[in-house]
């Protein structure tokens, strides 16, 4: 079995399996935790409106804007760049659509009425490069800042590594530089598999838990009558 066959087959199988098990384990485990009883009188008739905190926290308050601008801008740059490269590149879409079809029996267009849009390779490469540069800049900032360096641990650095690895290997595979294409695409897939395996057990899990924690906190604040 060559490297690419392993990466497309057993490697991907175990990575996806571990990812699904890990993510659901974490999410269900958190959701089913017993909530601390709130004995105070509710200030608002319904706490559900507090879910808007999910949106209001997407940008810092004016007081903190200047001090957090660097990480905010670069953070958004990375997330948008990464998302575009991930979700709007045809080879990626073919993979997602295959999973989609396997799960519900019909393809994306059959459900949503439109085909999954995608960009040309050049746009995707540019987007990936921007995300890559943003991640480098964020790492430099993390190391240069005494406070951030102090509060950073293995999880932060390893999560950074497994995130930038698919970007780097993806761009190498796209531009076909450094090794035979089979090797490049196999290494790209293996880097994605490393990301999937690490994802549920490190800080990358914030992809899901950020909405859970903000929503829960928003509802708690709303009940207490706090300004959101």
């Amino acid at each position: 079995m060559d490297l690419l066959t392993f990466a497309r087959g057993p490697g991907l199988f175990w990575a996806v399996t571990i990812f699904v098990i890990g993510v659901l384990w974490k999410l269900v485990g958190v959701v089913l935790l017993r909530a601390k009883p709130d004995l105070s009188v509710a200030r608002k008739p319904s706490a559900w409106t507090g879910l808007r905190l999910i949106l209001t926290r997407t940008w810092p308050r004016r007081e903190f804007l200047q001090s957090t601008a660097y990480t905010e801008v670069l953070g958004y740059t990375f997330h948008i760049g990464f998302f575009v490269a991930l979700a709007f590149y045809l080879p990626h879409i073919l993979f997602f659509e295959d999973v989609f079809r396997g799960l519900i029996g019909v393809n994306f267009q059959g459900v949503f009425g439109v085909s999954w849009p995608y960009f040309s390779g050049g746009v995707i490469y540019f987007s990936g490069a921007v995300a890559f540069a943003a991640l480098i800049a964020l790492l430099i900032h993390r190391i240069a800042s005494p406070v951030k360096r102090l509060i950073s641990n293995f999880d932060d650095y390893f999560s950074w590594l497994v995130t930038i690895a698919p970007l780097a290997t993806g761009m190498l595979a796209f531009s076909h530089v450094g090794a035979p294409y089979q090797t490049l695409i196999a290494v790209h897939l293996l880097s994605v598999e490393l990301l999937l395996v690490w994802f549920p057990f490190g800080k990358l899990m914030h992809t899901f838990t950020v909405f859970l924690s903000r929503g829960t906190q928003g509802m708690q604040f709303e009940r207490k009558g706090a300004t959101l």
Partner: protein
Amino acid sequence: MPDSMIPQDARDVTLGEYLAARGVSRRAFLKFACSLASLMALPPSVGTAMAEAMAKARRPSVLWFPFQECTGCTESITRSHTPTIEAMIFDMISLDYHETLMAAAGHQSEAAREQAMKENAGKYLLLIDGSVATGLEGAYSCIGGQTNLSWLTEAAKGAAAIVAVGTCASYGGIPKANPNPTGARAVSDIIKDKPIVNIPGCPPIPVVLTGVLAHFLTFGTLPELDPLGRPKAFFGETIHDRCYRRPFYDQGRFAKTFDDEGARNGWCLYELGCKGPVTYNSCATVKWNGGTSFPIQSGHGCLGCSEPDFWDKGSFYRPLSVGQWGNAATLGGAAAVGVALGAAAAYAARRRQDKIAKGD
């Protein structure tokens, strides 16, 4: 003309003398050598040197053994698209044994093989097409009561070099496909002490064989090979990199089915399972049938036939980026395990909270 029909003394003259006797002009031979040099990415001046070296060379004895094969490789070589060039393969060499092409049969053909091996010991080129059956000590494939395996090991001892023609001889090919009932192996899996060049393809491109032979005649060595034993000059780039549809890939224009507008417009076949991005061969540049076309130009994706184990790498019609990792049941099972683990973890946490609350 099958070489077995050429008088023995014709093998003793130089290639130049032999071609001149057959009416091939020096100019035509020079053009042939220059085109080969060009295809092999050698400098233009080498073309002349190749012509001179080949003209002075004695035509090497070549034994072509067919093992577990379909004769497609021989069909490919004999139906070369440019007779004035590729057909010269039969002029450049003295083809002393080839079951399909030789006039002799039965004991006569075996006698010709043994004679050629004896007279040219240490100097002949051994061409193999088809994989080598190793199961049951090679009994799955025999010729004249002898196994292919014994033929190969015996003939390899006196060979100057071995050329594995086609994917079966190069990497095992279709006979080696899972579950490989005959224990099919590649030539290079069995012979370790001789220079071997692989010319994979199902079938291989004729001019690659011509190029390898010309290189051997000119320089006395095999051409530079890649890690899979293929001549770099012909297998240095992927079909995808040299495909005329590549701009459509870069632009994001893909055929979704074999008869949609994209297919009619000649857009990229990646989505229909084309393996061009991971297949090293020169189909996109040399093409077939007089440079007329190649599979992608005909509207079908590349199967990746010049790569090892191409038959066992999943469907030809599933895109390259689609995983081969399971199905919805796999995901469903993993999800069930995840939910169960999460519920168990939450239950354990609640039990711990209760114990703390009770002051245990």
